[in-house]
């Protein structure tokens, strides 16, 4: 990498406002980017990676201000440059691709109008040239119907396609630098591949430099030449991609890698009657069937992972089991006897046996109740505990989830971190002393290191109390870590099911194969290999 330096940031400091006080959120970050180079910027939430990315355009969001350091873009000092100079750069020489394309496209204009805006305003092309160029780029981005798609409005185009259209738009002036801010985070795994491949190709074709911001190491490994790891506004380490994957130096970086190494030991084969059986369940919202003939069993002490992408019906299955959505046909058996289909028909004892933990602990815990009441209520209701016995039980439960009772028992959920809140959700489920806990994407909203803590806790509790888990997730890495049995769902049907060992070994159903092969691996060559394999027809390329 002896090419010219394009962007050089030194000692960057940025403050963010909360209320009336300013706190530093970026604490002296250096960054060097050469022409045509792709830098991966990774870190967990709150690491300041998006803020750094925007600062590379000389931009700070409302409520943020750049307080120190220099930002030099190709000889222009972006901190001292006038608004006019910066405006001429933005969109023309530095472009931006946002996380949510659906929100970042203006709903009032057609895609192609928004494409043409930057080239015309910056005097790069005429409107006619820009339109022809747009269609050309849409084709290169492998969008369906490249001639017509630009004439649609944003709401008429799917999420993955919008993200590609936004990348094309960023490319419209052939900028020297593009900032990608979590461009694939909101997408399903199978869609993520397509967008990732399209982004990588277009950046290489035009030899554009890029900063690729993400929290997902495996994703960034596919596209980046170098990777920089941020933690709470400071750099942890930076290295060439292969070196970073093979030999991370810092403890924090190693811990990021280590998350995926957690694995639950193999369990003995199930025996006897299952705790819960879902039998031929068909369910509908209105007249549209969202589940068709879904059947599977859950045995005591085992974890069944239900896997699928958004819209596959995995959460709907949980709603049928809990009685929120009575099925049209079929039934749910608990220890061999059928559960009444609707919530209202179930006894308190039946309700107690099946508990639920939610994805977003923020919305799953009433923000106005203290932990004492949040955790105590199920124990009070189902087990009739009162007064001192109840307090003792709550304290025991807090111990179980590794929180100090003296400190936390009278706190509100708002005073806890994300991981702690999720632990409270677990304690609340445990308080009912159930046999089965449904975990609905419980780790999806958490940072990787916190995820691991939660998974380990769930595993320990399972062994301690012989619990059965139904684990709903879209993340196959999590499945690999904790599942005993796997159920793969697509469009409301069960595609394939069986013990984990069988499910992760070929042969697979085509959809399972697609799903498995789409999970990014910690290998810079993974995407190249996968695309080549799909090209050759060895693995399915679409659902």
């Amino acid at each position: 990498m002896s090419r010219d330096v394009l962007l050089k940031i030194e000692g960057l400091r940025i403050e963010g406002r909360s209320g009336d006080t300013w706190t530093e959120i970026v604490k002296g970050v250096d960054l060097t980017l050469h022409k045509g180079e792709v830098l991966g910027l990774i870190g967990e939430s709150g690491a300041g990676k998006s803020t750094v990315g925007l600062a590379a355009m000389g931009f700070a969001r409302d409520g943020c201000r750049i307080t120190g350091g220099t930002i030099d873009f190709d000889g222009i000092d972006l901190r001292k440059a006038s608004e006019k100079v910066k405006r001429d750069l933005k969109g023309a020489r530095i472009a931006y691709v946002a996380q949510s394309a659906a929100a970042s496209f203006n709903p009032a204009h057609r895609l192609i109008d928004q494409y043409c805006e930057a080239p015309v305003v910056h005097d790069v092309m005429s409107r006619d040239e820009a339109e022809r160029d747009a269609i050309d780029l849409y084709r290169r981005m492998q969008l369906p119907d490249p001639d017509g798609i630009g004439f649609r409005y944003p709401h008429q185009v799917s999420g993955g396609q919008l993200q590609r259209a936004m990348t094309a738009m960023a490319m419209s002036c052939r900028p020297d630098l593009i900032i990608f801010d979590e461009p694939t985070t909101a997408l399903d795994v199978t869609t993520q591949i397509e967008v990732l491949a399209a982004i990588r190709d277009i950046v290489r074709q035009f030899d554009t430099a890029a900063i690729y911001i993400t929290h997902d190491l495996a994703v960034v490994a596919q596209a980046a030449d170098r990777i920089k790891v941020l933690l709470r506004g400071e750099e942890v380490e930076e290295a060439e991609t292969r070196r970073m994957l093979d030999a991370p130096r810092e403890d924090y970086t190693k811990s990021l890698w280590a998350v995926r190494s957690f694995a639950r030991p193999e369990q003995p084969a199930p025996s006897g009657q299952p705790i819960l059986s879902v039998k031929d369940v068909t369910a509908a919202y209105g007249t549209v069937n969202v589940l068709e003939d879904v059947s599977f069993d859950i045995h005591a002490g085992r974890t069944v992972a239900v896997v699928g992408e958004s819209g596959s019906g995995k959460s709907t299955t949980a709603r049928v089991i809990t009685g929120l959505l009575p099925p049209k046909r079929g039934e749910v058996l608990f220890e061999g006897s059928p559960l009444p289909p609707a919530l209202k028909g179930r006894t308190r004892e039946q309700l107690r046996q099946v508990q639920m933990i939610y994805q977003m602990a923020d919305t799953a815990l009433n923000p106005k109740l203290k932990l004492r009441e949040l955790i105590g209520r199920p124990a009070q209701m189902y087990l009739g505990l009162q007064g001192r016995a109840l307090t003792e039980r709550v304290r025991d439960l807090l111990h179980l989830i590794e929180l100090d009772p003296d400190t936390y028992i009278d706190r509100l959920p708002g005073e806890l971190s994300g991981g702690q809140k999720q632990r409270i959700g677990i304690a609340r489920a445990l308080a009912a002393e159930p046999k089965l806990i449904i975990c609905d994407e419980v780790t999806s909203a958490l940072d990787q290191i916190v995820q691991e803590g939660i998974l380990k806790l769930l595993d320990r509790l399972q062994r301690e109390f012989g619990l059965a888990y139904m684990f709903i997730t879209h993340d196959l890495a999590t499945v690999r870590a904790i599942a005993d049995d796997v159920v793969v769902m697509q469009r409301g049907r069960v595609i394939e099911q069986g013990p984990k060992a069988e499910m992760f070994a070929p042969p697979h159903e085509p959809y399972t194969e697609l799903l498995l092969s789409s999970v990014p691996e910690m290998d810079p060559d993974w995407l190249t290999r996968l695309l080549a394999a799909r090209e050759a027809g060895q693995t399915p390329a679409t659902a």
Partner: protein
Amino acid sequence: MIALRLALGIGLLFIVSLIIFGATELLPGDLAQQILGQGATPETLAALREQLGLNDPAPVRYWNWLSGALTGDFGVSLSNGRPISELIGARLGNTVFLALYAAALAVPISLILGILAALWRNSIFDRAANAGALTAISFPEFFVAYILVLWLAQTGLFPSMVRINPTTTFGDRIYMTFLPALTLTLVVTAHMMRMTRAAIINLMASPYIEMARLKGLSPLRIVLRHALPNALAPIINVIALNLAYLITGVVVVEVVFVYPGLGQLMVDAVSNRDIAVVQAVALIFAGAYVALNLIADVLSTITNPRLMHRR
């Protein structure tokens, strides 16, 4: 899409007319009793009932009332026996004139103030405009009106009572109606400005505005091309809501300035418990209110590509 909205609006108008008609069915006793008082003989009561068609079943009376109203025939006043359409006649025009006058002043002023306050958020201008608007909202209309009278009419600049008749020229009307129109403007502007400001601030926080800034567009282009098309729908709704608010405000203001409009007529009718007149005027006001909201609804549908271009 639009046809559906229109149909819904007409359905709503129908329901509103039902409510206004149905309310009289709640009268203790009936209309004839109401007119003649407790001392009436059974014979005169029966005769009046016959004359007013009170012996017909309610649906028939409703139909007669509504079909009459649609052709401009609202029946006769219970207190003086004159045809209600005659009472309403010129007054309707006067009220519409006053409302339009106030709207012509209020809409541009409040949109400009609201947009400026939003763009210069937290500036001195924004704070002052907000405090002023909050104060104006808090004042009863008659208070604003009398302050203006004390201030502008005492000095002889403008008349404190509006004496207009059909022969008054347009220029004189504008002059004589200035104080009532200004009163309404002050009250409505405050509301409209605050809502416009809120709508624009809400809009400027959206990711596509940030995207436009990151494309290097000029602030003017961002406002005109990216914010405005999306702001149309909320602004239209704000205008409609406040024009509808004028309908209420007009009642009090007309009384203060002795302005010969529908509001004045309605207040007199309520004092005399002249239910027939009250019903007629309420139907007109409510109809205007529903129509305004309907127009706003249709306009914001037209300006929303999500609704105009389905998937």
